[in-house]
């Protein structure tokens, strides 16, 4: 077939397969390094102290402690249920607000931040009021409470991802090509919001694995509650369990971020870290 072509300048997009260059370690002024070291020390020194207190030999014995498996399993189950419920509720809500009710975006931001300022006990009472009866006697009631707690983080992740997309144009382009809502969401929006999904997942999982107050008030022994309870009998083991939980969560978050980041970079999607999304530059004319 005949082709009509033009000489166009294609933007330089390849900085190498990894997308890294010599700029990976930028030259910073000395005072910035000082701040970095002070802040780093603030976070790392307690961890080193905890490691010294507990000793490396305490770690293997953690998993053999009474109640560990049940508490850890419950926390993992709650993390899975909470994450699924959060994504199913928050993603369509965020898409709908961006697409159909953009004027309500600020209001939604205000509403979704409420769980941070409302005391946990009030949230618990609220959830108990509306929760179905069969849930009230099970630890999975906590999942409902955690969905509310995760809302500020999950909504912001989706909000940031959606802001980085030309949502209306993408949706209309998909519709004009014959895609219904389901195909548009599945084939166009979700892949382009992968980074936001991962970010929301990471934050929700981290929140559930670390939440203590609500579980304690509801008298369910999740992993954080178990750690505190165990602290009464064995300090070093309890600290080892805390560190173990921290490391497992870190590895989990790191893995998700790396997988999401690599896929996102390959497809030219938005660059999303845990708390921010930056729009990928498009080609110039």
């Amino acid at each position, binding site marked *: 077939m005949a082709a009509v072509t033009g000489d*166009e300048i294609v933007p330089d997009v390849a900085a190498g397969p990894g997308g890294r260059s010599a700029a990976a370690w930028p030259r910073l002024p000395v005072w910035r390094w000082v701040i970095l070291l002070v802040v780093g020390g603030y976070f790392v020194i307690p961890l080193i102290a905890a490691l010294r207190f507990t000793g490396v030999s305490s770690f293997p014995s953690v998993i053999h402690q009474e109640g560990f498996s049940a508490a850890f399993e419950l926390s993992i189950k709650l993390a899975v249920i909470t994450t699924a419920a959060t994504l199913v509720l928050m993603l369509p809500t965020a898409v709908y607000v961006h697409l159909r009710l953009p004027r309500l975006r600020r209001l939604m931001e205000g509403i979704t931040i409420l769980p941070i300022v409302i005391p946990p006990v009030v949230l618990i009472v609220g959830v108990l009021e509306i929760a179905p009866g069969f849930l009230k006697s099970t630890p999975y009631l906590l999942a409902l409470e955690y969905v509310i707690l995760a809302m500020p983080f999950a909504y912001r992740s989706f909000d940031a991802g959606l802001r980085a997309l*030309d949502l209306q144009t993408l949706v209309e382009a998909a*519709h004009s090509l*014959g*895609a219904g809502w389901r195909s548009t969401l599945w084939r166009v929006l979700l892949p382009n919001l992968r980074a936001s999904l991962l970010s929301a997942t990471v934050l929700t999982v981290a929140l559930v694995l670390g939440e203590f107050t609500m579980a304690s008030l509801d008298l369910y022994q999740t992993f954080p509650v178990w750690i505190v309870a165990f602290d009464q009998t064995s300090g070093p083991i309890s600290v080892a369990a805390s560190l173990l939980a921290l490391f497992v969560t870190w590895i989990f978050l790191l893995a998700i971020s790396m997988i999401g980041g690599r896929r996102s970079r390959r497809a030219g999607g938005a660059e999303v870290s845990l708390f921010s999304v930056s729009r990928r530059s*498009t*080609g110039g004319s």
Partner: protein
Amino acid sequence: MTTKAARGTSAAIPAGDARNASGATVHLQDLSRSFGPVRALAGLNLDLAPGELVALLGPSGCGKTTALRIVAGFETADSGVVEVDGKDVSPIPAAKRDMGMVFQSYSLFPNMSAQDNVAFGLRMRKLAGAGRQRRAAELLEMVGLSAQARQYPHQLSGGQQQRVALARALAIEPRVLLLDEPLSALDAKVRLQLREQIRALQQRLGTTTLFVTHDQEEALSMADRVGVMKDGTLEQIATPSELYAHPATAFVAEFVGIMNRIPSEMLSLISRSGAAADGRDDGLPGETDALVRPEGLRIAASPHGNGIVTSRTFLGQLTRVSVRLSGDVVVQVDQQSTDTGGITPGASVEVSLVDPPVLVTDRT
């Protein structure tokens, strides 16, 4: 027929002008749409013949994009009918209208390669994988981007992205192609290339096309007919040459191309030659203005002329000269550059009329 139709500005298809039997006919009847207090469309009537490319041209807010979006199914008209091949498509959702659309902003799916973008519509139509990819490859070849098939949108330039978007819209063999200012985000050189390419493809495929733009050069160079819109209605729809030479209203005359507005009493002071001298009628009614194109005037250096040159702009073959006539009326004259020697700012010149006014209108 509306009053404007009686003035030769009918939105109907010119008789015997059906261009391609494979394209669809499009009929818009009395389309109205308001957004709160703002009336975007106020009874728009328009017909497109099979295979015809019609451009809707007008200033921002005139309703052209709203009209396009209603045809696409992205907006709902308050009243009126959209028919494609004689069938009312108003109740049909956008996804089932079988219309290809190229958007103003880059609309490629960022998570898909160029080829997958083009194949997307075919996938939605359940075309098998091999056939889908073959068809997508053909379309990419058609727009000259075979080499970029595996690249993602962020690896393509703006012009390349719009060419992929065009291929994607055409891949589904749409009954109607809708172009929503697809060139406005591109630089001048790429815009020129792409508009020629769009026109060539459209003519070759015979797809009925509705093209919205605010760029009159684009509209006049690409379209079979151009509809000029104002305040939600069509002021005039005609071929580009007819629109330029015989505008139906002062708005059209002044919106399309450059136009001089010369008061009737001033016109009588300007000498005439050429076509303007034939069958001349000096009797313009009072309180009217004559609308004259820059090429309808001619200037010559004269120590006792009727105007003073205020500026001149070299345009290549032509030079545009601004002349102040008495009464502070400034006119622009396009003249062969070779005939403008000695015509410099401050020089006295004699302005004469070589073509009759394209329109005489009430003074505003």
